[in-house]
Each structure stands twice: as C-alpha cells, then as structure tokens.
C-alpha cells in the first residue's frame, strides 16, 4: 500500500511539472441540460467553443455533467489536467466553481450568470432585463389583444429578471397591456420540460395572450410548438431560435454567452485574463433581439424603427430598465 502511495505521489509531481510547460488549454463545462439544448448551452457551444476551435485550431475540452455531483468532478478533473481557463456555464455551477477555484488558485475560471468572488474567477453577467425590454416592446407592437404571456423556467431571481424586463417593455408600448407570467418549476428540471411548457403556454393563450415569451431553456421548445399550434407568436431566448418554428417566431432575445466565452478565451490566450465581474449589456452587444431570414417578414420597418429608437434610448440612459435582482422585486 505504501509503495503504491509513493508511486502515486511521484505521478503527482510529474504531472504538475507537465502542467506548467503546457500551452493554452481552454475548457468548458456545460450545465446538465447538455450542449445541444437549442438555447443557453448551445449558444456557448456554437458561438464559443465551436467558433474558437475553427478559428484557432486549439482544442477545447468539453464536459457535460449528467448530474449535480459531476459538475464539481468535471471542473476538478479539468483543472487537475492543467486546463485553463475553464468556463462554467450557468448559475448552477456557482458552488462547484467556488470550491474548485479555491483548490486550484493557478487555474483561471469563468462563470456565466453568477458571481464568484475569487481572484482567479471571472464572473460574466448579462443585462437580460434590457434585452427582454426590447422583445417585450416588440410583443406589445404585434399584440392585437393587448395580452401577452411569459413562461419562465425555474423560479429564481435570474428568470424573474427576464420577466420584469419583458413586462416593462410591453407596458412601455401599451400601458394597459396585461402580462401573464408562469414559472415551470422550482428545480433545474424546469429548464427541460417542454410538455409542461406547452401546457403553460396553452393556458396563457386561452386567456387571450397572442405573444408568448419563453425564458426557459429546453422547456421553450414546447412553448414555441404550442404557439405554432394555436397560431400565435412566440419569442425565443438565449440562442437565436427564430429557425425553430419559422412564421410564428416573432424574434429571439439573444444572450451572447458564446461570444462572451469566446472573448474570455481570446483574452486569456493573449495573457489578458480579467478576473472580477464583467457585465455584458445592450451597449456592449451582450444582449439583443434577433432578426434573420426566418422572421424578417414579421417585423415591419415601422416596428424596427421604433424598437431601434428604444434600444438607442436604453443605451443612452434615457430609458431606465429596472433590474429585478437589484431590489428582488419588480416595482419600477
């Protein structure tokens, strides 16, 4: 047994020596929804990992945890292998990043949607309320019933931030509009429940909503399907989801987590890794609404001019969008 331990100790020393000499080795740990969730994680994959690999030819190690425990193990294994920087996708990773980043002070970490206050961690935050305000404004412009819906994933402040921004955007255009809000659940499973998403959307549509915005990861797929079946508009989230149900997808509130991830790797490669909080807002292009060949017919020039004006006003600070997480309430 003791011989085995000494042998193991020798491997440790050997490995740590190799890690110092190694070149740039970026990595990413997705959340349990997986990298092909068509939404949040896929945005990191398509515009971050995939793009970085094709442009630089550097291999990006990826890990998709299957459960809560593997998040931490995935991070630790990557750090152990000398990968750096490691991007952790999603607020669910916060406690795992806190633990593992403290264990490996020489490895650079970045986390999306959460703040981890350690000298080797970059916390990437997005101004979801600003992007949601824009799609809310668009929703109000096309709504004939002046009733719109919002289907959230997990009932947490982050998703309420989307809901609150959306509501403000709707009411900015149509002051007396009604916004129905539903959350899918209270656990991460709420981000992967399209059946329930579809039911919630249908009940909102039955109450008169003719635009439904889903900020619910994989659950959104069910919402968009329900909207198509009932012949109303839906709004996608995180990735540009306009292609999913062309014709009824009004737009998507894109959150450029992939671009941010890509940028973090680029910075680190150049030796400019910045720990601390980094905010991606409307002004820096971190959030936006999406127009492409699938929805350009739905957005008239008049709507576009209007929403661009709102966007300019938000960037200029003329419109102040209330951030739910600042006060933990949606009073503005």
């Amino acid at each position, binding site marked *: 047994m*003791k011989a085995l*331990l*000494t042998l*193991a*100790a020798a*491997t*440790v*020393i050997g*490995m740590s020596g190799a890690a110092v000499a190694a070149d740039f080795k970026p990595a990413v740990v997705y959340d349990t929804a997986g990298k092909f969730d068509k939404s949040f994680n896929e945005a990191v994959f398509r515009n971050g990992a995939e793009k970085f690999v094709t442009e630089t030819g550097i291999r990006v*190690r*990826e*890990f*998709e945890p*299957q*459960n*809560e*425990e*593997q998040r*931490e*193990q995935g991070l*630790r*294994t*990557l750090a*152990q*292998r000398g990968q750096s920087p490691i991007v952790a996708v999603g*607020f*669910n990773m*916060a*406690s795992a990043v806190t633990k593992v980043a403290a*264990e490996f002070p020489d490895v650079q970490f970045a986390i999306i949607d*959460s703040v981890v206050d350690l000298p080797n961690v970059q916390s990437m935050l997005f101004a979801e309320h600003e992007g949601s305000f824009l799609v809310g404004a668009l929703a109000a412009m096309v709504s004939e019933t002046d009733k719109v819906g919002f289907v959230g994933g997990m009932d*947490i*402040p*982050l998703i309420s931030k989307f809901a609150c921004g959306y509501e403000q955007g709707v009411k900015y255009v149509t002051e007396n509009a009604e916004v129905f809000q539903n959350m899918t659940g*209270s*656990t*991460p499973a709420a981000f992967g429940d399209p059946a329930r998403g579809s039911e919630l959307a249908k009940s909102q549509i039955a109450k008169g909503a003719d635009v439904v915005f889903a900020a619910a990861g994989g659950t959104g797929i069910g919402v968009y399907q329900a909207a198509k079946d009932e012949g109303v508009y839906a709004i996608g989230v995180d990735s540009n989801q306009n292609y999913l149900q062309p014709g009824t997808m009004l737009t998507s509130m894109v959150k450029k987590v992939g671009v941010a991830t890509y940028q973090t790797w680029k910075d680190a490669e150049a030796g400019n890794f910045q720990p601390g909080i980094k905010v991606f807002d409307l002004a820096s292009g971190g959030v936006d609404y999406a127009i492409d060949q699938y929805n350009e017919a739905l957005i008239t020039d008049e709507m576009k001019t209007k929403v661009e004006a709102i966007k300019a006003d938000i960037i200029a600070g003329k419109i102040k969008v209330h951030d739910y997480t600042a006060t933990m309430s949606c009073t503005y």
Partner: protein
Amino acid sequence: MSQQRIPAWVTVIGVPLVNILLAAIVSGFVFMYLNISPIDAVKTMAYGAFGSSYGWGYTLYYTTSFIFTGLAVAVAFHASLFNIGGEGQAYVGALGVGLVCLLLGGKIPFLLLLPLSIIAGGLFGALWAFIPAWLQATRGSHVVITTIMFNFIAASFMAYLLVEVLKPEGSMAVESAVFHEASWIPKIWELAGTMGIKMQRSPLNLSIIWALICSVFVYFFIWRTKWGYEIRSLGQNASAAEYAGINLNKTIIMTMLISGMLAGFFALNVVQGEAHQIKLSLVNGMGFTGIAVALMGRNHPIGIVLASLLFGFLYQGGGELQFEYGVDPRIIVVLQGLVILFSGALEHMTKHPVENAYLKLSQLVGKQEAKGA
C-alpha cells in the same frame, strides 16, 4: 447431470469472472462501433480509475457509496423482500445527516457530532423504509410497489425542503448552505498528508471505513445472529418460518429498518464527506445501482465489496472515457447495463458451460495424473 462435486470457487469466482469477461467483450464491440480502439478504451479506463491517487480516490469514493446501497438491498433480499427504495432512503438519510451538520456543525466537537450524524442518517433512512415495511407486514401492500413510490415522494419532499426551507437567502441553485468545516468527515488525502504521504485531492473520505465496518456487521447479523436466522428463514420459506414460531410481521419490519438504515448511511459519504451541503437529487441513481451491486455480489458482503469496486471502476473509468474521447456520457450506463445483463440476467447461460469446462479439465488432469502414476 454430473456425479462429481463442483467446488464452490468455480461458481462463486469463476462464473462471475467469465460473465464480466463476456460483458467486456461485448463492450469492446460497442467501442469499435464508436471508432474507439477497445484496447485504448480499457487503458484509458484503467488509468483513469487506478492510474493516480486522484483516480483511485474517486473510484473508492464511488465504491463506498455502492457498498452502502448494495448492502441495503442485500439485507432485504435475504428476507426475499425487494427493496428498490434505496434511492429515496438514501436521499432522506441525507436530510438527517445534513440537519445534524447544519444545526450542530461548529458547535460541538467533531467526535461528538459524527456519532450523531451516523445515527441521524441511519434513522432517517430507516424511517423512510418503515412505512413500506409496515404496509407490507400489516396490509400486504407489496414492498416493490411501495418503495418505488416512496422514491418519488422522497424526491418531491426533498425538493420542497431545499427550495422552501434549506436554500440560503440570495442563492439561486437548489442546495442547502455549506456545513461548518468542523462537521466535515476528514478526507483520506488530508490524513495521508499529515502522515507525510503526498496524495492528490480526491473525495475519498473516512466513510469507507464505516462502509467496511457495516459489511462485517451485515455478515455477522445475517449469518451469526438469531435475527439473521429469522430473516433467512422468512426469505426461504415464509410458511415454514411462521410454523417454526417466527413472527413474520416483526421480521419484515426489522429487515426493512436495517435495509433503510444502511441506505441512509450513503449520505455520510456523499453529503458529510464530500459535498458538505444537501444538493438536489444527490443520490443520482446510486440507490438503483445498489440493486445491481447486490445481485452481482450474491448478497454476500464480500461479493458486494468486490462488485462495488467494479462499479466504482466503471463509474470513474467511464467518466474518464468521456473526457478523453468526448463520447456520450451515457456510455457508462451502457457498460453497466452489459455487466448487469451478463452477471444478473444471463447468469445461468454461463454457469453450466463453466462448470462443465471445469469438470472436463479436472478429468483430463485426473487422467494424466493416473497415467503418470
């Protein structure tokens, strides 16, 4: 069929080994289908699971979990009760362990806290098994149905508690606060460090000692005590046991309490030893894997420890495959499924051929010895 006696080691060691070998060969075809050389895959898995103190730390950590859930299933099996509620019992056991650590962590010394958390984990697990046991004993509700339903109740109950009660203010992830450092079960690498042995950081902790103690306890309990005798009698022939004066209802409840208690101990390893907080769905199907472990280990503690090691290897080595080749992580489930298929379901397929081969071989050796003489 044959008059010659087959020694126990052929059935107990030979047959499982052949089964595992067959499973490995079929897994090899799976890897070839995935364009991965089976030899490389085995190397990766073996290195990942045993190649470094980090690797075998993780392997033994998983082994510890499987020993607890495997023993839980095995004890119930001896009374021919099929406890498939290990998942839920372990989850609720985590609540017991977690509450002790959250409420008393840092307030009382670790040596006082540890017995309390062991008792709480066992007690909560046992309580979760008690209701199905009581229903089985007094109402005849089949324990398979009730325990599996109790898994769902446990999942909802724990999700509710985590979201509404245990989640600290301002946190978005569904998990409790981190326990006070004084309540953590010491990690093996830390202990090795104090003794001057350098080990990489891994989640392996002292719970493994408790798992081995429990294995010894189960052996003595099942084969060396009056209660164990009652349990085995109930399992082999309930009417005969009743005729012999054994109180069936009492025995059913006792068996399930012990079974639930062992499942509850799972939380010591995962919650108090590693995560240091109660997380959502922390059991991750390890309660169900315990069924496979018990099946493979023939419900004997030694077999269970070995089967746990095999599954620990599959878990850790399979995870390594995912890192190395980027294969779908569900490959681990495929490998496990093959092992279970060959050693559980198709056990009799290889039993006779292996025994026959042994007989032929021993006859051959016998003839040659006769010739030599």
